[in-house]
């Protein structure tokens, strides 16, 4: 998905859209109860590598600077371990918030271009929509061709080992009802637009 120019209007709407979406998540309204204690950041296995820690995400939202978080590496380093979610004393579902920020970033084109994780996610979606199942060989091939082709060479020995052990199918498994899946997805996409 290509990035598009952000107008000032888009930017000022960003926080609002985000809050609206988050409040649609069951229990999402608890985001307002953040006490900035930092339990989320302390529990996060990857916060040490993040430009902004999970706690700072909510601080930045309050400061009207969510776009900075989106343009950083922060949300795409969330591995969905849910440690923050189960430990938050205010009951904030931080992992769901991370998902929402990822979606918002993709929707507004606000993510580091060439970043590997957004590419992985959108490619994964494309594969599942087509076959109804995941397909690791194609996923990784497309991911690295688009982001870092040399990585394919680096991973070749592992790929060969998996192949020799019967663990790397080179053809996708497809579901019979792929058409059904497509029709359901078309329905939700149309209902999201209206």
């Amino acid at each position, binding site marked *: 998905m290509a990035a598009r120019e952000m107008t000032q209007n888009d930017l000022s709407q960003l926080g609002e859209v985000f809050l609206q979406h988050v409040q649609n998540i069951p229990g999402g309204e608890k985001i307002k109860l953040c006490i900035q204690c930092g339990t989320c950041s302390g529990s996060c296995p990857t916060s040490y590598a993040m430009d902004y820690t999970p706690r700072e995400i909510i601080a930045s939202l309050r400061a009207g600077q969510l776009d900075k978080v989106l343009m950083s590496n922060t949300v795409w380093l969330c591995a969905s371990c849910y440690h923050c979610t189960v430990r938050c004393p205010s009951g904030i579902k931080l992992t769901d918030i991370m998902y929402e920020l990822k979606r918002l970033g993709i929707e507004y084109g606000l993510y580091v271009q060439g970043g590997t994780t957004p590419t992985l996610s959108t490619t994964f979606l494309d594969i*599942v929509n087509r076959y109804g199942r995941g397909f690791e060989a194609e996923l990784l091939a497309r991911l690295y061709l688009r982001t870092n082709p040399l990585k394919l060479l680096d991973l070749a020995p*592992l790929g060969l080992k998996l192949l020799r052990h019967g*663990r790397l199918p080179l053809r996708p498994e497809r579901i019979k009802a792929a058409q059904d899946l497509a029709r359901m997805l078309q329905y939700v996409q149309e209902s999201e637009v209206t």
Partner: protein
Amino acid sequence: MRYLYYPGCSPKTSNKAYDLSARAVGQALGCELVELEDWNCCGATAYMSVRELSAFVIASRNLALAEQRGGGDMVTVCSACLTVLNKAHRYMAESPDLRKTIGEALAVVGLEYHNGSRARHFLDILVNEVGLETIADRAVNSLAGLRVAPYYGCQMSRPYGDFDDQEFPTSMDCLFTRLGADVVTFPLKAHCCGGMLMSTNEEIALRLVQDLLACATEYGAQVMATVCPLCHINLEAYQDKVNAYFGSHYALPIVYFTQLVGVALGLSKKELGLGMELVPTQEVFASYKLAA
């Protein structure tokens, strides 16, 4: 006992031995796993990162198919599938708007979902339905002397903790202790393996895996048991990369928990998919009598 079974994409491909050993262990314990016909990918963490409603829709198609087939509990061996399917199940129960939209999408293809099915992890089924006593009664090999590190990772019990503690799960500890094993202390047993970050931010994921291998080794583990195919790949297939990156020499066999139960039950190597692993297990399993 018969359960609908949702294998998930990974146990059908790169973690085939997990699917094989789960079915074989189920059968040996009188708990047949019947594959849900024409199931689709649950969406995992990646789909949810791009589209929310669509992610819930593809997950709920599986729940609806399960309900159509009689409903109740659907068994999975993948922690990510477990969390994604049950998240869809729970959020639909909690949000009438979501239920309505997803219901409409399902209706387009003649499906319905009335919250009558949910996912359960196979470990939950073995420990809490089949029961430790039944499993121990059927065991032909004692695991005595085998030092096992049970690794639970994240999504088996987080966020929901339906059958085990969110911070310090113990189901496998109890299971393997009952089968005679010497379960080692493993403080990092519910820490993160890096998940999908192994494909996108390798250095970070390698570091997390290295922490796990170092901790298990330090406490004397001879083998680590996993409950999730993604954890398994990171710990097992990427062990060489960890060694190359950190200059370490780990050669810790990683097995699916079902393979270890299968060894106790004396099932054959073929049934358990032993031989498909990249870190050899011959040495740790050499003394056990397995079916031909």
